[in-house]
């Protein structure tokens, strides 16, 4: 049986980051990818953050096939036919080295994979890891779907993504429950560059992001989004699977409804859909993190549930967890000890980073919104209605309008209820 020092399962951001750091540290590394190239099965919204990515791929932004650097982030609270919008635009985000980028994973991941190959790792595509090899409770290699496809190694890095069947198979976690996983769908819709520049008020390779709440997901816990690429838009929606079940909705129908919203439709006019994709997002947060290490293995990225749904961050957590896991593996290698005790340094080090700290901060956030869905229905409705009242010029004095708004709001939610909501937000988000 062929043997590697380390085998990485999955060529996404987490797996590629881990592979690069280990290969640069002198390890003989193989990355097993089920698609026919690195990126062929990968999907996110997607926003890629510069600073964390540079921890593994220095100055990647000078060469990588990125789409646009984000100079403005918009947040929309939608009702069926109205929208309250906020945005932050900042010229600092328009200056090198930039803050974050819109990307298309198939393109950018294959670029990252090429850098990983140059670092010395072997990337093996078109291969599914179906099980881990174990002896005396210790992971000793992988079983693939190829004939005679067993490979041995000292350590396996599980980076098999949101739908991580392997972490279940080796008993690190059970099947995730439907209220801890979201399903996201998106379309890549192409436009001439000039149309995107004009519609979104940007120039050159500047881009914007829009996150949409409320009616964007028909009141379910989730978000809709539009991200500008160079010559396309990524338009999608994601919601908790438990909510989709409860509302008996199909994700594609939710997306179609969002595309038809009066605030969204004009932005998409004349575009040509090029691709339709679906992917899960692990939203269980801190309390759903599986055991992160054991005898001969570590777990990184989406497979470990490293997603901050409140800030739509994930690719950054994936890369940093991959890097830190790889550093722990390199130290384990020096000790010639790949036991759980030795690899536990991965978790210790990760706890000192934003990855675990942010997940801990928002540990109750998803379930808070699940228990308080009126945040996604009642309040978007109220603020939109208040704005409509104040902006409608109809001869009614403003004082009278204010009174009507306050009365109307209190009819929907008592002062006590609103105070409780504010307190709840503070307790669960601060």
């Amino acid at each position, binding site marked *: 049986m062929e043997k590697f020092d380390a085998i990485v399962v999955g060529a996404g951001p987490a797996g590629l980051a881990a592979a690069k750091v280990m290969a640069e540290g002198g390890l003989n590394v193989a990355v097993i990818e*089920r*698609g*026919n190239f690195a*990126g*062929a*099965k*990968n*999907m*996110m919204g997607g926003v890629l953050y510069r600073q964390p990515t540079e921890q593994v791929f220095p100055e990647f932004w000078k060469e990588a096939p990125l789409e646009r650097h984000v100079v403005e982030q918009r947040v929309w609270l939608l009702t069926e036919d109205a929208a309250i919008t906020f945005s932050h635009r900042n010229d600092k985000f328009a200056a090198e080295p930039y803050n974050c980028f819109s990307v*298309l*994973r*198939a*393109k950018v*991941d294959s670029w990252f994979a090429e850098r990983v190959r140059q670092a010395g790792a072997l990337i093996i*595509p*078109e*291969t*599914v890891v*179906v099980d881990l090899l174990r002896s005396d409770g210790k992971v000793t290699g992988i079983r*693939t*779907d*190829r004939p005679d496809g067993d490979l041995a190694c000292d350590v396996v890095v599980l980076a098999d993504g*949101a*739908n991580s*069947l392997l972490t279940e198979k080796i008993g690190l976690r059970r*099947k*995730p*429950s*439907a209220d801890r*996983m979201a*399903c996201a*769908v998106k*379309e*890549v819709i192409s436009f001439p560059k000039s149309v995107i520049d004009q519609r979104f008020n940007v120039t050159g390779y500047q881009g914007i992001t829009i996150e949409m709440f409320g009616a964007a997901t028909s009141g379910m816990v989730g978000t809709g989004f539009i991200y500008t690429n160079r010559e*396309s838009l990524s338009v999608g929606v994601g919601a908790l*699977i438990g909510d*989709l*079940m409860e509302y*008996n*909705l*199909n*994700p*594609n129908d939710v997306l*179609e409804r969002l595309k038809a919203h009066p605030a969204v439709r004009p932005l998409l006019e004349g575009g040509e*859909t*090029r*691709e*339709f*994709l*679906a*992917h*899960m997002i692990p939203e269980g947060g801190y309390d759903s993190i599986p055991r992160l290490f054991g005898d001969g293995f570590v777990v990184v990225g989406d497979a470990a549930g490293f997603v901050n749904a409140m800030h739509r961050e994930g690719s950054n957590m994936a890369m940093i967890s991959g890097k830190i896991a790889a550093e722990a593996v390199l130290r384990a290698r020096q000790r010639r000890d790949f036991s759980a005790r030795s690899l536990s340094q991965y978790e210790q080090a990760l706890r000192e980073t934003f990855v675990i700290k942010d997940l801990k901060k928002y540990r109750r956030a998803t379930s808070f919104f699940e228990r308080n869905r009126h945040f996604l229905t009642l309040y978007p409705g109220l603020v939109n209605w208040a704005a409509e009242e104040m902006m409608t010029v109809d001869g009614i004095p403003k004082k009278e309008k204010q009174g009507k708004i306050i009365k109307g709001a209190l009819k929907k939610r008592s002062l006590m209820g609103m105070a409780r909501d504010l307190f709840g937000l503070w307790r669960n988000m601060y």
Partner: protein
Amino acid sequence: MRLEDKLFLDGFKPDEESHLAIKNMQVCREQCKGRPCLEICPANVYRWEGDRVTISYEACLECGTCRISCPDDNIDWRFPRGGYGIGHKFG
């Protein structure tokens, strides 16, 4: 835009055998509450025909939502063989 037209845009390389299977059709027939797979799959892979669930695995987007939604854990969900299934152009 119709779902069929969207799926037509995607690059699929279907294997001869399905990577998805119902473990026990009796459970779908008699026990399952609501059969969420029929509604929730973004590619509409699952359909109820007569007295059974049919699976158009060729159009599977490989998200895994059906397995999570299945109340009886009755879907045998595997990844398509290496190199088969959907291949993203953009991702």
